[in-house]
């Protein structure tokens, strides 16, 4: 890189640039990957209902959601390949240190999951006329298994980075590396079951909210859209189970984090001094400083004294919780603190929406309330927002470590990387991925638009009474 360019971008050191780039690319990738994971069960259900029961409603739902799954999968593929390269390009020291532990699971992910998903999605998308019903349904199941398996293996890797075990540090070619000694311990780390459950459920919630929002939109514009009432009902039932479960599970998960990564837990609660921890039920910035430094004196809070200790320890209100002041270097506390609050707040919002929808469903008036349909439309992207904020808590909260207690992030970055190079690729990724998101939104919007014009064409002149519809197929 020329001197001029280097000095212009001197504010972006290779480490920061690499972290921003990884953070940005993984954030976009997570959206598409979890779209596949969350949508997979819907696809299987719609395909099975359509093929086995020949129900017209489900044929329409299958076609619509398989189209969205397909474009999401393409986006997941094109954003996923850079992920598999960036460990090497930007974090070669991390790759070398952790290669024995995480290279295997990443290779298994590709061999077990990606091929399954990519190959049978081809059949699902273009093979309806070419294969038997049974093979067609099986293809949808295999695509779903592929999506979930990829989540399994990538979370094996991430969970190991949070609670590493099953290895021994050895000297190899002049570098200290982690050598695998116990594969079962290394693959099934203490964090893994927590993370897998929480993430898969988050994907289901995010997609259920998306399905509910789009269904609500079609119903909002056309009350006679029976298939969309079916989809909305299904999404609400799924949310009624998954949203409360996420809160209960999240509570226990936080306790596990306190036990295994006390520094991250302290950052989540902005708990500086070791001792009894209060629980901030609600925290509102009392002054602008709170946004960057969420210490108690900068916040206006409603707090339960000792409840932080009580929850983290599982019943002892006086339990000593390690504070951030115990550590030489803290994660960016403000980001972790506020991201955690956003995630939890959104989680409770989802429970509220699910209960609202459940009540309307119980009364048989799910599609009658404009206000409810509008709320679901507004909430449709929020599950993905909650998921990203949750990941920020997990990943930023682990800093300064990239592998908890083993390797710091600043030591993991490439030493040959220049500011100029990382700036070029970061800018490239920002532009390219914004274009990808734009393309996805464009395709989504045109799918919604064509579905809406189909609904208008077919249903015009109908003024049916809603309650009688669930048992009747649409009339095309």
């Amino acid at each position: 890189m020329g001197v001029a360019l280097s000095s212009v971008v001197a504010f972006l050191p290779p480490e920061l640039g690499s972290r921003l780039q990884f953070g940005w690319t993984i954030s976009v990738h997570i959206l598409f990957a979890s779209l596949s994971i969350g949508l997979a069960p819907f696809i299987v259900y719609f395909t099975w209902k359509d093929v086995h029961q020949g129900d017209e409603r489900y044929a329409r739902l299958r076609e619509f959601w398989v189209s969205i799954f397909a474009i999401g999968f393409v986006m997941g593929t094109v954003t996923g390949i850079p992920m598999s390269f960036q460990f090497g390009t930007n974090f070669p020291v991390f790759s070398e240190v952790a290669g024995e532990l995480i290279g295997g699971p990443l290779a298994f992910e590709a061999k077990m999951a990606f091929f399954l998903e990519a190959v049978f999605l081809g059949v699902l998308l273009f093979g309806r006329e070419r294969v038997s019903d049974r093979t067609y349904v099986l293809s949808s199941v295999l695509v779903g298994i592929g999506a979930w398996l990829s989540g399994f293996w990538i979370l094996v890797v991430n969970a190991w980075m949070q609670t590493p075990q099953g290895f021994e540090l050895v000297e190899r070619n002049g570098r200290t590396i982690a050598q695998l000694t116990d594969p079962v311990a290394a693959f099934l780390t203490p964090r893994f079951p927590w993370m897998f459950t929480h993430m898969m459920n988050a994907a289901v919630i995010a997609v259920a909210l998306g399905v509910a929002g789009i269904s609500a939109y079609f119903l909002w514009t056309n009350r006679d859209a029976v298939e969309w009432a079916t989809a909305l009902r299904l999404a609400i039932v799924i949310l009624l189970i998954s949203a409360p479960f996420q809160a209960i599970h999240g509570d226990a998960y936080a306790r596990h984090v306190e036990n295994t990564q006390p520094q991250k837990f302290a950052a989540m609660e902005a708990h500086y001094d070791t001792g009894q921890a209060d629980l901030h039920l609600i925290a509102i910035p009392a002054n602008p400083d709170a946004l960057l430094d969420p210490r108690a004196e900068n916040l206006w809070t409603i707090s339960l004294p000792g409840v932080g200790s009580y929850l983290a320890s599982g019943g002892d209100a006086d339990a000593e919780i390690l504070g951030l002041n115990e550590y030489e270097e803290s994660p960016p506390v403000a980001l972790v603190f506020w991201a955690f609050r956003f995630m939890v707040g959104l989680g409770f919002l989802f429970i509220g929406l699910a209960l609202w929808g459940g009540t309307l469903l119980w009364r048989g008036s799910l599609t009658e309330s404009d206000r409810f349909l509008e709320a679901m439309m507004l909430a449709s992207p929020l599950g993905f927002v909650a998921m990203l904020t949750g990941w920020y808590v997990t990943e930023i909260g682990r800093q300064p470590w990239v592998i908890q207690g083993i390797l710091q992030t600043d030591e993991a970055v490439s030493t040959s990387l220049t500011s100029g190079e990382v700036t070029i690729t970061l800018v490239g990724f920002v532009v390219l991925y914004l274009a990808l998101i734009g393309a996805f939104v464009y395709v989504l919007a045109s799918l919604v638009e064509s579905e809406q014009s189909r609904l208008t064409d077919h249903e015009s002149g109908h003024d049916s009474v809603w309650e009688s519809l669930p048992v009747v197929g649409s009339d095309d």
Partner: protein
Amino acid sequence: MTDVGTLASDTLFGLPLADIWFGLVFFILGMFLFLDGFDFGIGILFATRDEKHEREQLLAAITPFWDGNEVWLVVFGGALFAAFPAVYANLFSRHYLLMFAILGALILRGLAPEMYEQREDKPWQKWWGRAFIVGSFTAPFFLGIFIANWLLGTMALITLPGVITGLMVVALTVVDGVAFLRLKTRNELRDDVRADGFRALILYLILVVLTLGVVYITAPELQSALLSPLVVGLVVVNLVLTGIYAVATSFNRYYAAFVANAGLVFTLVSIIGSLMYPYIDRVEGLTVDEAIVSTLPLNIMSIGAALLLPLIFLYFGVLYSVFSGPIKVDESY
């Protein structure tokens, strides 16, 4: 702390797993070049076709396949990471901008046809069509540069041997694309692309000879390997296969041409692997035995690969037989 050093002992059944994985990494690279190669080739042929129905046929020929084909590149990265983590780390960080150039090209190639088919209007299709062509051309071109830089242990981004190798790989993907397209079409298009196939084949021949010559001149450390019986034999086989491809294409033996084309790709990656061995990263001076992971993960990986690779071939068997025969442009979901 103990210095473990080289760790190719106690492998499963005493197999030379380090060498097997070295071969496997190149085999996977070959699978990617062969399968995604025809996607790239058809993307490049896109530039030669203006008729709407012809362009639709080109896209339809690869639509069900390209995504699965591209997974071989992910597996290439994954296998290299799992078996030779130090090489994965050094190689990918050394060729930083080149790796991202490949990734950018692949993103463009994946996105463009999806967008192309979204709308009917002319400027839209013109620009996304161009993006598709650019992505399809640059992806194998940059990949070729990467392969040359890897083999020669080059630090620089772009070098003469790199550019020649890149162009050779591009020519090979067109040869590949023509062979695949002639299997999938039944009309004039099938006859029309024959000339493109010959042109690409001649270019490939010239470029492969040039590449070997440039490597001989610029890399004295590879001269003895280049003249070894194995490499000379592989080069001869490669040249014979170009002849078979040409004859099969002239006589409209579509399957024979396609098989010869597969042979071209795999002999080419074998030549590269043979020239590189026993090194896997010349810049760091790492040989295959020095760079291999320790025995436990190696054994686990090997069992996994032995179980999964047949399954993967089964998936591809299913996919290619479901979509066998000529393409139907109107077919969709």
